[in-house]
């Protein structure tokens, strides 16, 4: 039927990814394969290297070895901005919104590369400036509506309630029109109700935008509730990989989390 219904197309693939910081092997021989439309979880104890992997995937760090492929395109060693353009967007463990800017403008920053007009047209306010800005406003409002944030459009981002800030970060990431969305501990600091709402939001994003989501999370309820597949990381290496329930019942995984 359409491309999306084709089964098992791999969107993100890493091969033998590794990076060291001084003598510390932060990530070693990391292989992952995420299919289109999948909700994929990356879990592991603190310091296991999860966020390092996100930083490798987004070009913040350059891997010492291995390869990153998105939709068959090799992104290894590319700059952050090119990786963003290629279609990987992320949110942050500690929310990093542009807190002094209005909510709407935060989303518009995400739209930056998709709505062209030149700096000169902006300074002189030529007709194209007005037209493009209007289109951007419309698109940004649309995204805010999707996340139920349209009522906050003029608020400063820092004045939003915590849970809404998390949603705004996802909205801003979605504005870059990604193929793959990386969520770094989206439920951190949330109460159970907020977490439940967040789970629905993530599922909704996947369904509505046919989005592929790779998320890091410590909240096992969230992981078990929405992730279809899991990779468990321990000391920079893959400890287990597979269907969520299988992985969570793996004795090695239980040991890594709870100790002997």
């Amino acid at each position: 039927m359409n491309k999306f219904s084709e089964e098992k197309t791999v969107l993100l693939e890493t091969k033998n990814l590794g990076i060291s910081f001084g003598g510390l092997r932060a990530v070693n021989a990391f292989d992952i394969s995420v299919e289109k439309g999948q909700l994929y979880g990356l879990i592991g104890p603190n310091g296991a290297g999860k966020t390092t992997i996100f930083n490798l995937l987004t070009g913040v760090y350059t891997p010492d070895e291995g390869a990153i492929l998105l939709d068959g395109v090799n992104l290894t060693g590319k700059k952050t901005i090119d990786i963003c353009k290629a279609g990987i967007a992320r949110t942050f463990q500690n929310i990093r919104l542009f807190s002094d800017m209005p909510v709407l403008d935060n989303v518009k920053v995400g739209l930056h590369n998709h709505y062209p007009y030149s700096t000169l047209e902006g300074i002189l306010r030529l007709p194209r400036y007005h037209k493009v800005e209007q289109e951007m406003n419309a698109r940004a409002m649309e995204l805010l509506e999707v996340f139920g944030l349209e009522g906050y459009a003029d608020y400063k981002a820092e004045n939003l309630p915590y849970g809404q800030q998390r949603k705004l970060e996802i909205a801003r990431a979605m504005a870059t029109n990604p193929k793959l969305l990386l969520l770094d501990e989206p439920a951190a600091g949330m109460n159970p109700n907020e977490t439940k709402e967040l789970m629905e939001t993530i599922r909704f994003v996947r369904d509505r935008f046919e989005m592929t989501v790779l998320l890091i999370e410590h909240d096992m309820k969230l992981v078990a509730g929405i992730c279809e597949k899991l990779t468990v990381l321990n000391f920079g290496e893959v400890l287990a990989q597979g269907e969520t329930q299988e992985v969570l019942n793996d004795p090695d995984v239980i040991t890594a989390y709870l100790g002997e």
Partner: protein
Amino acid sequence: MSFVAHLINGISLGSVYALIALGYTMVYGIAKMLNFAHGDVIMIGGYVVFVTASSLGINPLAAIIVSMAACTLLGVTIERVAYRPLRGASPLAVLITAIGVSYLLQNVALLVFGSDTKAFSNVVTLPNLELFGGQLIIKSVTIVTVIVSIIIMVGLTLFVKKTKIGRAMTAVSEDQGAAQLMGINVNGTIAVTFAIGSSLAAVAGVLLCSAYPSLTPYTGSMPGIKAFVAAVFGGIGSIPGAFIGGILLGVIENLSKAYISSQLADAIVFSILIIVLLVKPTGLLGKKVLEKV
């Protein structure tokens, strides 16, 4: 009546400080560095107008545009050659480099134009304004300076708040890393900031030299430092802060010169800075940085 005249002259001088301070404050806000070479860009701007208008006889307005273009190019080049390689280096290294660039510009000007004072011809050739039957004479350059500064200030605020590149600038100033991950070209954005700051410096240079028509390779350094003070005074990183700081500084300086002592004027200006920073360390409109623990 003379008080009003001093006040208006102070506002005019302050407007020039404000224009220069905008360059300091924007670059600081976005690149988190103090571009101490900014004052010398003003001097170069002045020389460009001097050469094109006074020597080559080009129309002064066209000369100003040439000067803006030259300073924009100069600002972007300085950023590209001297500051960009130091991105991520310690702030101290960047600061020392900026001071180095400042001396470089001064000495290149010294080499090219010599140390003698050039008589800069006023580019504002409008008649002076006479009020109250000639009791109060306001020079046309004073009025033009104030008006130009207000227009630039409003335009710049609109530009930063309402355009894509302005939003990119704000985003980079708040969080470079996050901005980059949202697809913002950080280096490009910083270059645009330098370009805008330097073209404003050219305008400031022309207005300054028109009001005080003598030009030497050191013309830019004192106004540069005072504009830096104005930027800190108003809250560095804040555009309206730079404007208010500049105007206040100009007025205080001029009134001190008129009523207290012209020798002590600078001392008074800097003492006020110290007092403001003691009472309000972030400057008048500066934001408190809250660190979440």
